[in-house]
């Protein structure tokens, strides 16, 4: 177990180096002077641009800047942003709870929708129920998340409000600590739009994996020794079928924590995705790099959690 964690940490370091390097290369592929000129203000002369470059640390060479950034990272410091010279750590601290509440709620929702439907269609293959769940999955697999989000807004916000039922707010975020009820009300539509699409993927995943498992020898053995259908499916089948689901879940949570760009934009949630989008628009390099680093870390951390969960869930992994 310790070896696994150490190996993962090493992997994380490698991925972080690669990904931050890529981010820097992408940003410095243009002329760094343009970056400085951008933040020197309007009508800035050459002297002012040079001042801005020094202020932002852009006067040093590429390698020096990159190294400087990595050292800062090691101290848990993302640096200051270019735009307002605000510590990025505090910006992230403000944006992260928004993204986290979006992700946590929708993960719960999509598992609650996806797993039962997947199990149902795997235990009744090629029946009407299976076909209905396939139709559900294929439909939502084909709907881009911004389309679903906007249509939900159109129907549940605008049309309901016009009909005199203002149940759902348009957009925005209310912190959980401020008002739990308002928080919930503001999150329902974003959760739904994210969860329906993901649930479609998970339905297919569970169905496929459970069908594979139900064909294995140990299922026949379990049936042969007289266990009930229910015990066999849920205690033996589903448990073994969950492994690929957990892998996917790790990747999905990691990726989404780095910012559900589209959902955040549609519903006006000021999470990490919005932060990154704004920063990219402003060519605010340190902020972009920070979000990229966070994203990679989340993904690697989630993968580690997944590997540990594997060992807990699947004795074959533990013994190997």
């Amino acid at each position, binding site marked *: 177990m310790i070896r696994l964690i150490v190996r993962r940490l090493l992997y994380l370091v490698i*991925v972080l180096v690669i990904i931050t390097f890529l981010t820097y290369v*992408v940003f410095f592929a243009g002329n760094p002077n343009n970056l400085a000129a951008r933040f020197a203000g309007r009508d800035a002369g050459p002297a002012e641009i040079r001042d801005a470059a020094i202020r932002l640390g852009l006067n040093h060479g590429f390698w020096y800047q990159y190294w400087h950034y990595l050292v800062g990272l090691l101290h848990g410091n993302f640096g200051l942003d270019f735009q307002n010279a605000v510590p990025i750590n505090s910006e992230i601290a403000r944006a992260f709870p928004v993204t986290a509440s979006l992700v946590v709620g929708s993960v719960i929702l999509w598992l609650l929708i996806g797993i039962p439907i997947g199990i149902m269609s795997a235990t009744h293959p090629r029946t009407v129920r299976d076909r209905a769940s396939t139709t559900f999955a*294929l439909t939502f697999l*084909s709907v881009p998340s911004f389309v679903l989000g906007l249509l939900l807004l*159109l129907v549940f916000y605008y049309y309901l409000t016009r009909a005199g039922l203002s149940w759902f707010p348009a957009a925005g975020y209310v912190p959980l600590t401020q008002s739990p009820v308002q928080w919930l009300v503001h999150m329902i539509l974003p959760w739904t739009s994210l969860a329906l699409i993901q649930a479609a993927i998970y339905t297919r995943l569970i169905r496929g994996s459970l069908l*594979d498992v139900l*064909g294995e020898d140990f299922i026949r053995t379990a049936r042969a020794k007289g266990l009930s259908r229910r015990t066999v499916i849920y205690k033996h089948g589903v448990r073994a079928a969950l492994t690929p689901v957990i892998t996917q879940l790790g990747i999905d949570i990691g990726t989404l924590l780095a910012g559900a*760009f589209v959902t955040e934009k549609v519903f006006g949630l000021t999470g990490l995705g919005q932060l990154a989008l704004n920063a990219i628009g402003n060519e605010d390099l340190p902020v972009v790099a920070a*979000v990229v680093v966070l994203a*990679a870390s989340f993904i690697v951390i989630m993968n580690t959690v997944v590997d540990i969960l594997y060992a807990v869930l699947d004795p074959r992994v533990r013994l190997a």
Partner: protein
Amino acid sequence: MSALRADELEIVEEKDPELNEQQFESRTPWRLAWRRLKKDRVAMVSLGFIVLLILVSLFAPLLTALIGHGPNTQYTTRGLSLSGIPVGPGHNGFLLGTDDQGRDVLSRIIYGSRISLEVGIGATFLALLLGVVVGLFAGYYGGFLDSVLGRFMDILLSFPILLLAIAIVARFGPSLGLLIVVISLFSWPYIGRLVRGQVISLREREFVEAARALGASDLRIMFVEIAPNLVALAVIYATLLIPVNIVLEATLSFLGLGVQPPTASWGNMIAEAQTGDLFTVAWWFLVFPCVALVLTTLAFNLLGDGLRDALDPRYGRSHISPAKRVRRAFRVRRTPPAPEPAEAKA
């Protein structure tokens, strides 16, 4: 009794050669697959829709000329009401209504289909090229090359690709070419991994051994002997990758990083509809591009599903009995389901 048997034998012998010849002529793997696909009504409807869409995008200038409305012309008098509200579907000769600037939604959707198909098909083609070549090398040579390329593909697949794509597009400025390259850059590992898995099992087959015994070079074995066996796989997964790439283009355009207005793309039409809150009173210029996008991705997904069934008999559903299907579904499967090309032999 024995006389009867002789009779039967005679009849069989008379019929058999003719029958066999007929069947033999028509039974190439592709014809078999096409026959299976033709029975799949959903896939055929999807195929019809896609063909129609391709025709529409090819003849976009002709169609919009027939309609009489250019995609970027602002019909401020006919297209907007006095208070500046867009005209609804079917009014003033605008079949799907107008948008907030008085432009014909139908004409814009028609021109938007060009962008979607160009990016979707173009990026998929590039991804296919890259994925097949890398997958061939990784799978055929194995060893160190395989672990390096394999790990590289794994890392690419686990990256927050949307974020990097956004960063690249933002840095170099949005253009159609860059869009295609960026999208294909992030979608080729899907193909690469599949091809790699397939090649690993193919390289152990007898025909590869035979080719090697005849003195064929590695490159020849890879591209002449093995590659044709990958065509079915490539066709299936390319069809399934196209909708993914179309959605990626629409998403980037929606975020303002793809095709720039006033050029119409479904993504930026939806984004424009969202920015002013006008779509609350004029739903059509939000909903119709959404419908076009969803129908297109759905059609490609359904066709891909059908193609998988048709080209890969192991997943087939139309030509085996229901009881057999269930039994097959519950059959023990020890190896992961690497799809095998439809009975194809090099």
